[in-house]
């Protein structure tokens, strides 16, 4: 503080001398008068004073500069050197406006020369300190941490230390750890040097040394996590299993980077460039930029890559990682220079959302492309139904994330649900998307069902598949999304197919068994004959149905029973009463065994064997 006052005083004195002194000699005289007046001025104002200051600084500084040993290793020397540099910098600043004076000019040249040599030396000291700081870190076997449970980054070092120690990958549970990559004393010294270099206008040199060193450190840290640099094309052509591994590594790496490495670098920048906030900001951005780009680039590659449905869950992982780390990202890169990085991150976040939506679209295409001709023999459950339902159930485990993803999009242009469905189900875009996929599946199943020659088998097929769908939807998040009304409607569908089946399979048989007022209009022998014919028809129809349907299957046990019971329930009484009618005809009763092939119990037995799927009468 006193120095400033003195400087001002000196400046005023000089100014007066200059203004009043019309000649050089006059000015000198005035200065001499001032010098005589005040001892401080004497030293500062006289040419001799300037030279003296310079010479003394030269002696001190040259001594340090010419020493081989690093100056910082001796704290007393270090601070003395820095102090001298401060004085030199102040002197240069003071003398520069007076450069017109030839004597001062030559001293200024020497001073600037000395300053440059000091700066060069300081730069060397700076680098050496950083190097040494890093070395001492290796000796302690990893970074100095404040908490005991840490990541498996230390595994490499730990193994070297102790052969008995079995490295177990510790999950990074606590991200509050701010890692000191360098010891505190070193950081302080680095700051002292940086201060002087920036003040002397050597900020570029200082920043350069700093940035180079930290970038290498970061790259090394990341490679220890096993993360390799991958181009977009490489990721695009990678085998899925390999890519899954890379994604795992990437998730870990980006968490470590954003929660540990970058905050640590930020803190380092802030401490070393304390007081020079734009230098701190710029250097931080330059140090972390490359690594950030590498990490973001990988996420981008995943977003740009294939939309194969199997990739959904891993892409969701990447998306959720980016989403969850976004607050950290924006906090860490909040400075003026990092705007483009923030924008990149957001763009990639959006692309990942698109990728997820694209995957569902690809699922739709997959369903549509599934050939109609590949209907399942026996009308059973089709693989595509099983695939889609299990897929959607698995997807709905990430329901919240998916809601987010679809909320930001434009829903499919046609909301295919009818009014009731819309009203009662979840009105979210995700619900709409799910309903749409179900619609696509429905169309595909319809097309497949038409391949069957028998209408009854068509109904069996649809019954089976919709039963499965309803079951998978009912007790799941998927059910909430689609809504109760949707479920109710599809359950009704299953019942409808049940009815259709029964009608198309059994109405003919039942028709045969219908004995109306034949006996009234025709003669007893005519009645007997027609009954015999009916019986014959019944036998052949029934035989045929049992043969045809022997390979048909209903996979759901409950549904199978229901079907059997309902068939039995209509056929049995009809047959029983028909048999009853037969017994009234003496003609037939005489040769009952010959005509009646099945007892009522036989019929019921045959029916109870239906829908098992193992054909007793192979076609």
């Amino acid at each position, binding site marked *: 503080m006193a120095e400033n006052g003195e400087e001002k005083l000196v400046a005023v004195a000089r100014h007066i001398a200059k203004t009043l002194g019309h000649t050089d000699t006059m000015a000198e005289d005035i200065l001499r008068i001032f010098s005589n007046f005040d001892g401080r001025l004497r030293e500062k104002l006289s040419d001799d004073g300037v030279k003296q200051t310079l010479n003394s600084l030269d002696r001190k500084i040259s001594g340090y500069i010419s020493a*081989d040993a690093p100056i910082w290793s001796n704290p007393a020397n270090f601070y003395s050197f820095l102090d001298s540099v401060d004085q030199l910098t102040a002197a240069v600043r003071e003398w520069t406006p007076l450069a017109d004076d030839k004597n001062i000019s030559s001293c200024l040249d020497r001073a600037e020369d000395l300053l*440059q*040599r000091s700066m060069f030396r300081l730069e060397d000291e700076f680098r050496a300190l950083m190097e040494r700081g890093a070395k001492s870190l290796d000796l302690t076997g990893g970074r100095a941490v404040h908490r005991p449970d840490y990541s498996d980054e230390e595994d490499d070092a730990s193994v070297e230390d102790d052969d008995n120690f079995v490295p177990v990958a510790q999950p990074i549970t606590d991200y509050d750890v701010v890692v000191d990559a360098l010891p505190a004393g070193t950081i302080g010294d680095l700051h002292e040097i940086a201060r002087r270099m920036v003040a002397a206008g050597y900020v570029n040199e200082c920043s350069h040394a700093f940035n180079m060193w930290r*970038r290498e450190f970061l790259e090394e840290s990341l490679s220890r996590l096993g993360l390799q*640099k991958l181009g977009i094309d490489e990721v695009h052509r990678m085998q899925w299993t390999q890519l899954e591994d890379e994604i795992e590594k990437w998730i870990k790496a980006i968490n470590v980077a954003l929660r540990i490495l970058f905050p640590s670098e930020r803190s380092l920048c802030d401490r070393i460039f304390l007081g020079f906030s734009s230098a701190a900001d710029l250097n931080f951005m330059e140090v972390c930029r490359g*690594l950030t780009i590498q990490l973001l680039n990988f996420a981008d590659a995943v977003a740009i890559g294939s939309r194969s449905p199997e990739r959904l869950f891993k892409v969701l992982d990447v998306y959720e990682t980016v989403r969850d780390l976004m607050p950290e990202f924006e906090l860490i890169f909040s400075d003026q220079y990092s705007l483009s990085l923030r924008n990149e991150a957001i763009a990639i976040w959006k692309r990942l959302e698109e990728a997820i939506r*694209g995957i569902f679209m690809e699922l739709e295409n997959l369903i549509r492309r599934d050939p109609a001709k590949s209907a399942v023999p026996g009308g059973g459950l089709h693989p595509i139904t099983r695939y889609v339902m299990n897929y959607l159930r698995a997807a709905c485990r990430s329901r919240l994330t998916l809601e987010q993803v679809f909320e930001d999009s434009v829903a499919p242009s046609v909301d295919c649900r009818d009014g009731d469905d819309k009203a009662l189900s979840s009105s979210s875009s995700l619900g709409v998307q799910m309903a749409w996929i179900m619609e696509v599946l429905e169309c595909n199943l319809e097309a497949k069902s038409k391949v069957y020659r028998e209408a009854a088998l068509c109904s069996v097929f649809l019954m089976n598949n919709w039963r499965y769908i309803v079951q998978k939807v009912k007790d799941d998040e998927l059910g909430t999304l689609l809504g109760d009304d949707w479920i109710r409607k599809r359950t009704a569908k299953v019942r409808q197919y049940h009815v259709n089946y029964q009608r198309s399979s059994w109405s003919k048989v039942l028709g045969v068994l219908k004995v109306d007022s034949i006996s009234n209009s025709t003669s007893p022998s005519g009645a007997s004959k027609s009954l015999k014919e009916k019986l014959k028809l019944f036998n052949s129809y029934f035989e045929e149905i049992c043969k045809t349907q022997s390979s048909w299957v209903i996979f759901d046990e409950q549904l199978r029973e229901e079907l059997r019971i309902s068939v039995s329930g209509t056929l049995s009484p009809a047959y029983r009463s028909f048999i009853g009618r037969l017994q009234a005809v003496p003609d037939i009763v005489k040769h009952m065994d010959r005509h009646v092939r099945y007892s009522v119990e036989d019929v019921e037995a045959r029916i109870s064997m239906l829908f098992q799927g193992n054909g007793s009468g192979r076609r």
Partner: protein
Amino acid sequence: MPATDYQESSSSPSSFGFSILSRRRDQVHSMESTHDATGQETELEAFQRQVAERFQDLAAADSHELLSIPWIRKLLDAFLCCQEEFKIIVMNNKSKLNKPPMDRHISDFFERSVKALDVCNAIRDGIEQIRQWEKQLEIVLCALGNQRSIGEGQFRRAKKALVDLAIAMLDEKDSNTTLAHRNRSFGRHNAQKEQRSFGHFRSLSWSVSRSWSAARQLQAISSNLVAPRGNEIMSTNGLNVAVFTMNYVLLFVMWALVAAIPCQDRGLQTHFYMTRQFLWAVPILSLHERILEEAKKRDRRNSCGLLKEIHDIEKCARHMNELTDSIHFPLTEEKEREVKQRIEEVRRVYDAIKDGLDPLERQVREVFHRIVRSRTDGLDSISRANSHD
């Protein structure tokens, strides 16, 4: 890498593609046609014409403009415009594009687009390299750019920055080597006792793997890129010509970027299918030839990038080096004037780079985003058209 082949198409040198389309147009006038048929021809013809015009404009650049930052930005602008027009063509023709043979052609184009993305990323890294060189120039300016008479100290400082700059540009050329150990003994009072290994200007490309090669990537983009034949053009109504054109434009723009800006394994021997069938082929191929000529020049052969501003850096650095080497103290007035002159040169180069690099990088990034966007949208709309057949 073999030299580019000259495979002239066997058809007549007149713009064959155009004659096909114009013949059809005559037919169209002579009979009733749907609006669609004329609409499509006009759209495709317009595309050809616009591509040609843009590249004619770029080819009109003189030797000072060619491969300068402003010219590169014009090139990227032209690419973005072509891309947008092509996107519209894809939208309007999506039902044709999901059937053979066009489905193969369009998916092939989108595959090439993905390869171009890596080039964009590598170029972005290259621009960052140039920024590092800019910082060394800034030191030179800081040291010698004052009005005051300059002392030995400032010269030493400038010299060190120039040495660092030379090392950086050298490192860039050997971008496949690992850590460069350099002994920076110049400018020290004492000789270095030991060789310190500095994490120097090692070209750390963050976006591509160490084994990535720009030359190989370009080769992949250009592989099997041949002009469609007459009968194919007829059968697709000229649509495959549009795809071929966009492919070619993509290839050329990526190639030019690699030529100009430092990146890993810059090789310019990419095979360009030679064709004079199309209006735009003439200016593109002429630019191609001129750039190759530039690359062969004695003082550019070993350059790490043909960007004119890089050449300017090399020149002004060389002049500055020669000057500082010939300096004796005290400076004569003549020498002082020379120093001021050279410094002005440095300042001009520095300003051009400082002003030019940020917008250039933004544009390269924009190209990246648009390629992704148009690929995603294109694939989506085509696959949707597929399912609504």
